[in-house]
């Protein structure tokens, strides 16, 4: 081998080894794990939660609410196959406050359940249901709190925060996006709350009735001091219920009655004859046929402002 080659070879070896050493020193750095770009699969137990999840998560989440049309989510009983779908979700959004009794007996992974009303127990309102007792334990309630929490926009905002928090824990790299979505949603809900407050001004003095016990949180938030019947929009209440209503308004007059849906025309007429104006205020538990939750609330607001409670009592 020529001398030149030998010298060049030594130099090359040295340079190569030096490079190896540098690479050797850097070898301890592990590559960063790839950021997941898969959408979060989120299941909800009612429409307001699903709507809020979509508002917060945007394109990063896939929100599902597999409740058939026309079925009240509060009393829906999913099939086992549907429960298995919920099991496979990244997150299952629960309303809390005892909403959706089927949850109690479904096999769902606790780590993926988000009780959106957790921490709001001090805001819960008694449902006023009849309890039952047996055995040595004595009296106990089964549905002792009202469950339609989202009807109060402030509570809805708190539930939205829980949703955003759950999203952020699973996808911290998208935290800013979720916070932005939450901020916009909170702004909308706050504005809704203010408009409802304005619409309900004067109502407590006039007297408020509810066709069904689903407005407890609305009542608590706006101090309406109303009371509930247990009537259904598509059914005639029956003589006993009319008598009970008459006895109640004799004791405490009322001029408006909120309904989840359109009452029967005869029911509406009879109410008006009694001096009670029926007003449809949909809670939005199930997905509306058209529009979203805010639009549904806009429609509710439009109906509320049409009622002049100061004059309504004098119309019969």
């Amino acid at each position: 081998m020529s001398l030149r080659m030998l010298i060049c070879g030594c130099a090359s070896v040295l340079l190569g080894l030096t490079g190896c050493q540098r690479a050797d020193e850097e070898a301890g750095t592990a590559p960063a794990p790839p950021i997941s770009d898969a959408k979060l699969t989120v299941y909800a137990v009612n429409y307001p939660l699903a709507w809020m999840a979509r508002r917060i998560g945007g394109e990063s989440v896939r929100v599902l609410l597999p409740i058939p049309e026309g079925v009240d989510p509060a009393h829906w009983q999913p099939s086992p196959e549907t429960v298995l779908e919920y099991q496979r979700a990244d997150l299952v959004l629960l309303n809390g406050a005892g909403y959706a009794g089927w949850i109690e007996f479904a096999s769902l992974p606790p780590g993926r359940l988000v009780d959106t009303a957790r921490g709001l127990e001090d805001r819960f309102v008694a449902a006023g249901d009849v309890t039952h007792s047996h055995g040595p334990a004595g009296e106990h309630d089964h549905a002792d709190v009202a469950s339609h929490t989202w009807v109060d926009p402030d509570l809805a905002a708190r539930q939205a925060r829980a949703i955003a928090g759950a999203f952020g824990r699973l996808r911290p790299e998208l935290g800013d996006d979720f916070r932005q979505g939450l901020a916009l949603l909170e702004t909308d809900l706050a504005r809704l709350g203010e408009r409802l407050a304005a619409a309900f001004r004067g109502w407590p003095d006039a007297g408020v009735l509810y066709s069904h016990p689903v407005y407890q949180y609305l009542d608590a938030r706006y101090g309406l001091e109303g009371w509930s019947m247990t009537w259904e929009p598509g059914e005639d209440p029956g003589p006993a219920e009319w008598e009970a209503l008459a006895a109640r308004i004799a004791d405490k007059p009322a001029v408006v009655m909120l309904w989840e849906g359109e009452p029967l025309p005869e029911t509406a007429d009879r109410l008006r004859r009694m001096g009670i104006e029926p007003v449809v205020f949909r809670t939005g538990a199930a997905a509306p046929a058209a529009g979203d939750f805010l639009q549904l609330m806009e429609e509710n607001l439009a109906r509320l402002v049409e009622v002049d409670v100061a004059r309504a009592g004098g119309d019969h």
Partner: protein
Amino acid sequence: MKDILYLAWRYLVFNRWKTGILIAALTVIIFLPLALELVLDRSSERLRARAADTPLLFGAPGSALELSLGALYFSGESPAPLEYAAVAELGDTGLATAIPLHLGYRVGLQPLVGTSPDYFRFRNLAVAAGRPLALSGETVLGAAAAQALDAAPGDGVVTAPESVFDVTGTYPVRLRVVGVLAPTGTPDDEAVFVDVRTAWIIGGIGHGHENLEDPTASGSVLKRDDSNIVANAALVQYREITPENLAEFHFHGAIDGFPLSAVIAVPADGKSGVLLEGRYQAPDSPVRVVRPAEVMEELLATVFTVRQYVLAAVALVGAATLATTALVFLLSIRLRRAEIRTMTRIGAAPGRVAAILGTEILLVLAASVLLAGLLTAAAATWGDEMFRWLLLSET
């Protein structure tokens, strides 16, 4: 060579009793330590693997061994209960996935395990027939449990009563089999899996009965006022949860206070696991955290310590047996002096005689080794089951 073998063989066959006893004794001496090593190594490997696969266990303060054996192998006394609130608490840390376990009930002789869907994912349990658990009242059987109970999807199984003498205790509940798991070679094969809520219903914390507000239930009503209805002893409680009566089931009390036997915590990573352990270091903590791998190592260390003593004993006995065997051969040679003289007289060289005698010994040894080998192979097949049964049934 053939003639030496023939003569040695004929001698051994002629003295079959002596030969049989010698082979049996030598077989035992060779087989025992081999089998012990094999069974212990393989069984401990499986035990370790099961424990190593379970990063952390949370339970009520008490015996770590009891907690680990119960949660991993569904054996022994059911650990002291801890509250279900621990599941949410663990989940809130964000450091681990919490998998509840409720133990203590049985279906026949099979352990009933109340858990959540995460357990199946965690243990890589696949459904071979039917579907996974979806609702309370359903059950998914391990492969061996399905065989033992002779049940398949669509069948029903009934939980074992807790006590025949406690007439006020909980009644057996009929569970609907919705799935059978693929075999895994782990204790999961023996288990009858239900949702943890079903386990609570079996325990009587939840139940279902006719709706007392329904007029048809008047016979079960003791008294009623505006806010409460008191039921009488005629109230019938449902013993099977079906889609039809599911709505009538309910729990009494807050779920956070309901009992669990253990919670498996699956940390997100090594750091999360250590951080989680660190949060439960207070001596007065109502929840204790256990690393099953460490607990099993301690248990196996005890077992292996015992093994050392056993091996030492076996070695002593083996030495004695070999000495006795040697004595038997020596005495036999002495007794066969006339025979040996005859062989010599008829032309057998001394070396040939020695070869015949040596071949007899070799044949005995070879038979013993062969037999010990067969027995060891059998131990390899069934030994770890036996070991687990021995180990876990005694604790």
